[in-house]
């Protein structure tokens, strides 16, 4: 990734050294541990649920991927599918993503949903640059991925990744909401494996 991004270095934890003393999750903390998002160790059994061991990477990544706020921007017909994804049938509120922010300053995810024309391209780039770090981009649909049916056109950019970095590409024209959900899950997997401590030099 480019400036301000994070090195994608999956943190491996030697699970053989972690002593699990129980079989089934009972308390809230144990259930959280059971989700697999944080590999935690309960250290103080005498005070149930009071101490939580994890790595900074895992906690921060878990917090980030659990509430991705997209910026409200739609470029073409894919934006109609984006509305469908946000509605009750497909319901991205399950991912904590239902808050489409009207300002890029408050968003950390951008769906490039539709045809990026030459005239719109500097605006899309400006929107991306206005978003605070950390930020992610999902390119949605054939037009945003490669130019699609307008690849030979005088007025359409040949892929939005020529102006901004893209994390996940969702193919389709337009992609069905199920494809969006799959793309969102792929981005969550990616964020889960990002190395945050590495940017602080903690990996040395």
């Amino acid at each position, binding site marked *: 990734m480019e400036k301000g991004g994070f090195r994608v270095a999956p943190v491996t934890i030697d699970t053989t050294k972690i002593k699990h003393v129980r079989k089934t999750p009972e308390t809230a903390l144990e259930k959280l541990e059971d989700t697999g998002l944080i590999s935690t160790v309960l250290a103080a059994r005498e005070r149930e649920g009071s101490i939580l061991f994890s790595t900074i990477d895992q906690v921060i990544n878990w917090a980030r991927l659990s509430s991705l706020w997209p910026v409200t921007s739609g470029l073409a017909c894919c934006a109609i599918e984006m509305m469908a994804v946000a509605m009750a049938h497909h319901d991205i509120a399950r991912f904590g993503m239902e808050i489409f922010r009207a300002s890029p300053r408050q968003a950390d995810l951008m769906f490039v949903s539709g045809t990026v024309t*030459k005239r719109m391209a500097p605006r899309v780039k400006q929107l991306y640059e206005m978003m605070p770090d950390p930020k992610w981009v999902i390119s949605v649909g054939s037009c945003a991925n490669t130019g699609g049916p307008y690849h*030979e056109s005088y*007025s359409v950019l040949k892929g939005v990744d*020529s102006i*901004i970095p893209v994390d996940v590409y969702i193919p389709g024209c337009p992609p069905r909401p199920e494809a969006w959900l799959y793309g969102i899950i792929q981005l969550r997997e990616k964020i889960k494996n990002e190395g945050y401590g590495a940017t602080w030099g903690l990996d040395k």
Partner: protein
Amino acid sequence: MNAAEELKNILPDAVTEIGKQGKKPQATVKKERLQEAAKKAQELGFDQLSVITGVDYGDRFEVIYNLFSYENKHNLVLKVILDHDKPEVDSLTTLWKGADWLERETYDLMGIKFTGHPDLTRILLPEGWNGHPLRKDYDMETEQFVTIGRDGDDVVSTDGSNLLRRK
């Protein structure tokens, strides 16, 4: 008698040819007398100018006006043939206000000049774009990019280094 034949009867020397475009009656009009013919068509009840299109045939341009009458539910197609070197025709904005943006679009993409138009500027592409993209001789090899200038206006250039990530 359809509308094209009626127009031919009224202006026999301005209408050079009548025929059909699909199911719609079509009249080819001399470009010098387009305004006169359009005025007569409006008097016949064609109160709406639906769309203006331009066609580049390589050796000539054609501008096609689709008219519709709300009262009689009739269509009429007017056509003018223009020189390829100097495509100019009178504007119809005095007859139909809606001709304004339609003529600007035809000017933007085909480069046909409408004399008498109040504001003949580009409507879809930014000012400064080189060429008219729907012409047959448009240069598709040089790619043009748009960036935002200091005052917020669109700036067109063939150099995309401000916009693109990699060269």
